[in-house]
């Protein structure tokens, strides 16, 4: 066992920090408010372009797709530093973490050639067309249909709570081509295809984050389908296991916790109650950090994703909650015109237990797969 970083890892982290110091503008923390806002989307495109030029956007990708063939630690260190900074990549983190790697594994040559290079250059934003009004946690009950039509498909239906849809170029869409869980297929759909309507839903997360997306007789060629018909469930399960520990939320939570403690110390308000709560939150953040490192270590050794990824995800939910509760009780001004990044963090913290699958679904997985408890009857 070794809990230290090696020289290469330290040097990579330093490289990322140097880049952030040089490329984040003075008003970055104000910009970070609203991860899907027009201002942050514009900035993120420019920032990701610069990251790509510095070889820091997709270092863990294969060199044939613009990466450095780096190991999973490299991508995780990069993700830690980006998330701790307030995620200046905006929604492009999804391309880097799982959409790009999913296309590399399951895409046709044509799909790869069309979509991967713009991701590697930091030029494109995707959205994830999964949830529907009647299909949230029960994703397999989704109703959006892709019916055979001529040489391709005609898509009708509705998605909801879709992040970044207002600014996205392409949608990674789940639609039904047959009944049942095995009847769901994936479509790579340009968002300017006729028949797509996007409506923003005001949200507590910030400007431009959540949307409804309507599909009315949207016609797509057969070549827009990723993988075989009905293969969506297998592909998405693998992709989301990358996503589940792909966001090191503990990195920003921990940084914001330290910042809130500094605020209290300077104001002479770091009293016994604040000490107790902040220390508890810090321990939860550090436990989560180690859970996540454990998963990355397993990934480096070529082990398939196991139930520990769900445990890591739930540990994250705990940590985010404890930091958010600490801030709102002891630094309440953060939510009322105080520190911009503390505010942005609080807005995003609520997402931890909800996005990419409700935390309760993870608890079910932990109970069944890690603890081996008997399943619930269906």
């Amino acid at each position: 066992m070794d809990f230290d970083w090696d020289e290469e890892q330290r040097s990579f982290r330093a490289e990322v920090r140097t880049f952030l110091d040089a490329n984040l503008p003075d008003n970055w923390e104000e910009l970070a408010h609203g991860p899907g806002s027009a201002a942050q989307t514009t900035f993120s495109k420019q920032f990701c372009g610069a990251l790509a030029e510095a070889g820091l956007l997709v270092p863990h990708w294969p060199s044939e797709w613009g990466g450095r063939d780096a190991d999973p630690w490299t991508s995780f260190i990069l993700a830690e530093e980006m998330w701790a900074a307030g995620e200046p990549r905006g929604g492009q983190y999804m391309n880097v973490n799982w959409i790009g790697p999913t296309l590399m594994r399951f895409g046709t040559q044509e799909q790869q050639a069309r979509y991967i290079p713009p991701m590697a250059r930091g030029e494109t934003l995707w959205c994830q067309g999964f949830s529907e009004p009647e299909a949230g946690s029960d994703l397999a009950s989704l109703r959006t249909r892709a019916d055979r039509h001529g040489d391709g498909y005609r898509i009708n239906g509705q998605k909801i709570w879709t992040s970044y849809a207002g600014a996205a170029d392409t949608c990674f869409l789940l639609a039904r081509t047959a009944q049942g869980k095995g009847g769901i297929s994936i479509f790579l759909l340009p968002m300017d295809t006729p028949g797509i309507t996007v409506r923003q839903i005001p949200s507590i997360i910030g400007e431009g984050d959540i949307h409804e997306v309507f599909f009315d007789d949207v016609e797509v060629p057969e070549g827009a389908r990723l993988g075989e018909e009905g293969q969506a469930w297998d592909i998405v399960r693998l992709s989301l296991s990358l996503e589940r520990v792909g966001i090191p939320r503990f990195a920003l939570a921990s940084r914001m916790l330290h910042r809130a403690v500094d605020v209290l110390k300077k104001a002479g308000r770091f009293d016994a109650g604040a000490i107790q709560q902040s220390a508890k939150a810090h321990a939860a953040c550090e436990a989560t950090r180690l859970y996540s490192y454990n998963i990355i270590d397993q990934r480096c050794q070529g082990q398939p994703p196991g139930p520990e990824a769900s445990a890591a995800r739930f540990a994250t939910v705990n940590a985010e909650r404890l930091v958010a509760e600490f801030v709102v009780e002891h630094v309440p001004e953060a939510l009322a015109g105080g520190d911009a990044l503390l505010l942005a963090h609080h807005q995003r913290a609520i997402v931890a237990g909800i996005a990419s699958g409700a935390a309760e679904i993870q608890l079910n997985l932990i109970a069944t797969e890690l603890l081996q408890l008997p399943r619930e009857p269906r």
Partner: protein
Amino acid sequence: MDFTLTSDQAALTGAIDRMATQFESIPTEFDGFVLEGRELEQELENGQYFDIAAIPEMGPIAAALAVERLARLPCAVEVALSMLVRPQLDIELPRPFALVEAGRPGRFVASARTLLIVADDSIGIAHPSPDDVEAVESLYAYPMGKVTGALSIRALPAEDAARVRTWLRVACAAEIAGLLQAAIDVTVEHLSVRKQFGRPLGSFQALRHRMAECAVLAGGVRRLALKAAWTGDAGDAALAALHAQESATRVIYDVHQMFGAMGMTLEMSLHLWTYRMKALLSELGGRGAQAAAVAQYCFDNKPARID
């Protein structure tokens, strides 16, 4: 960053695991609070397992793994302080070790050959004669004892006292990690077998979710304890001990709820782990003191960045 054990560490933990397996069972006639493990203690002595932290190829991380594994056994043996704290002292001191805080009864005090006397910031060492200590009946599933005589106490220099306090925290966290795991294991078994309303209790989502949350907490405690054993850092030790005492507080309650009335009987083994954890909840000042240590070591002039 590498979570794989070296071949030496793997061999050692394998040996400890095999030894522990022989002591998994609880005598059928047992219905008490404390199950002592003299035979196990003798085997650990004979195999010089109490000294593994000092072996360069093993280190404190191997000792922490051993403490965690042995804490999962139903019998209570003074392992944690001997394996993790004793090697941090420059001089050879006889074991068993025990901690005495503010004159209160403590675990293993009646049989200890070395006492660590904790008072405020200072730590002293004493070697009691049998007349200086006596056993105390208690609910805690450890043999408890208290000091009755006037001890000759040698105060540790401040630097040594700070180091000992750090390793006491590591020992506490590593032991709680094992106790949590054992309590969860025995509860999962109960929930898988015990049926109500025609189906196993463990198939009810209300209980599944609570157990899953307990498992996440226990996994966090184990990881923090191992990291603290690896770094020996005062902040890491404080975080591990705090998370351990926090998590134990929650898990003790939950697993007793899961067992219902059956868990109240001494015929069931649950109390062997939960009431041992209860003894550890107040050690080293409890959560308040661990939180103060986190504030001291982790929030003072330390950036929130990883180095």
